[in-house]
């Protein structure tokens, strides 16, 4: 009898310790700080409609800066974003936003073709363009990312923007571990805006 009590006691103590540790770990992972607040901007989506800050409200948005003729990291960024687009197809509370850093060559027609080539069939993934100086200002001034020598020198980060148009975290689009973290964060935050 004595050993049963001791065994159960040890198991319960370890269970409580484990619970505390796990709750703390989960809590810490869910604590994604607000890194910045986006202010007004206007872009044009491939459909021809304007895309503004208001379109970020109420949804989580994964943002990247690309250009369609890019032969460097963009194909990998596009493939990764396409994977995310497919994996999160079960929810309309997550959208993807690609902003062209080469408005001269990336016409709306080019953006539509690019979207089709990536298998995009709906408006959960938006492809936008705007004047180069506005894009540079948006990237540097609002997203706080380098935008020198565009289009070639564009950032390869993915940016997570929450349902209040706040920047929550940056991810290295070419790093699988970072993309796993992005998926975890999307799942954590999307449950909060149900």
């Amino acid at each position: 009898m004595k050993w049963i009590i001791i065994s159960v006691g040890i198991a319960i103590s370890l269970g409580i310790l484990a619970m505390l540790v796990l709750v703390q770990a989960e809590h810490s992972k869910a604590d994604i700080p607000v890194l910045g607040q986006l202010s007004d901007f206007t872009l044009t989506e491939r459909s021809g409609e304007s895309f503004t800050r208001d379109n970020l409200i109420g949804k989580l948005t994964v943002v990247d800066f690309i250009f369609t003729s890019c032969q460097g990291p963009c194909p990998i960024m596009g493939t990764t974003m396409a994977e995310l687009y497919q994996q999160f197809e079960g929810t309309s509370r997550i959208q993807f936003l690609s902003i062209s850093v080469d408005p001269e060559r990336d016409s709306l027609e080019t953006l539509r073709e690019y979207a089709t080539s990536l298998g995009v069939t709906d408006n959960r993934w938006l492809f936008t363009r705007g004047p180069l100086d506005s894009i540079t200002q948006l990237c540097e001034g609002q997203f706080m990312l380098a935008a020198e020598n565009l289009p070639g020198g564009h950032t390869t980060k993915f940016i997570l923007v929450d349902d209040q148009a706040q920047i929550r975290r940056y991810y290295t689009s070419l790093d699988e571990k970072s993309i796993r973290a992005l998926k975890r964060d999307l799942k954590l935050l999307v449950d909060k805006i149900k």
Partner: protein
Amino acid sequence: MRRLRQFAFFSTIATYILIFIGGLVRVSGAGLGCPDWPTCFGRWIPPTSLDQLPSDIDPSQFNIALAWIEYSNRLCGIIVGLLIATTAVLALMYARHRIKIWFPAVLAGLLTAFQGWQGSVVVSSVLEPVVVTVHTVIALIIVSLLIWVTQQSYYEEHSAIEMPKLPSATVKWMTILWSLSIVQVILGTQVRQAYEVVVHQFPMLHPTQWVGKVGGLNHVHMTIGIVVAVYAWYVGQAILKGSKGITPLLRQSIIGIMVAVGIQIILGLTFIFVGLSPLTQVFHLWVASIIIGLSLVIFTASKRAYQTGSR
């Protein structure tokens, strides 16, 4: 000899606690809480705030809770390492004429040193599944060696103790149970890895759907689990019924195994119907390690009973 037995026993208990903490580190996602090794964010004591981070480290990598969970694992590892090293030294001092005591004790010490180094590989490999599995299996071998040393030094200390009469196949039964349990642990780590891949591919599914998508490997693990449970109950009953003069330790070990396999089946069912929760995962691995330990206790006792001719 008494001191050796006590140290070996404490080392065994401490190693079991460390296996539990190790499992906790794994499921809490704190395995990379410290991205470097042996230091944590370049410091011997982990940072407690962002401004203590070295300038070359990306602040988004820093999570204070995860860093301290991983650091606690390392601290406990050092304490257990010192305990096992002391056990090995004591074995060389007091049992150098008994190779079956000093050799496993020294081997446990060497494996512990290796395990410490291998811990650095776990971190540098960014939790490569094979490396994590090796880390787990080495821990189970260390704890098995310590149990053997504890028991052998007890028998050395009490050489006149009368051994119970056990069924002749007990040694064989326990060898099979120990081996099957090790195989199950290895398979379990692979199932967990496959589960992580599924979570990565289908982030929006419910946890029970994730388990369902793991596939064939999971079915193999479940089937062997049921076989192990039935086998453990069968041999447990056979030993209890077929023994004479069974000691309390042996009786408790046998009942312990039978209870433990029952717990494993219940935990397995919760994985299927509720999904893999971190807490149940920790206990699933830990209870498996207890089954491995208890089957070795019975193995060693039955071997002794065989040698002293009391079967």
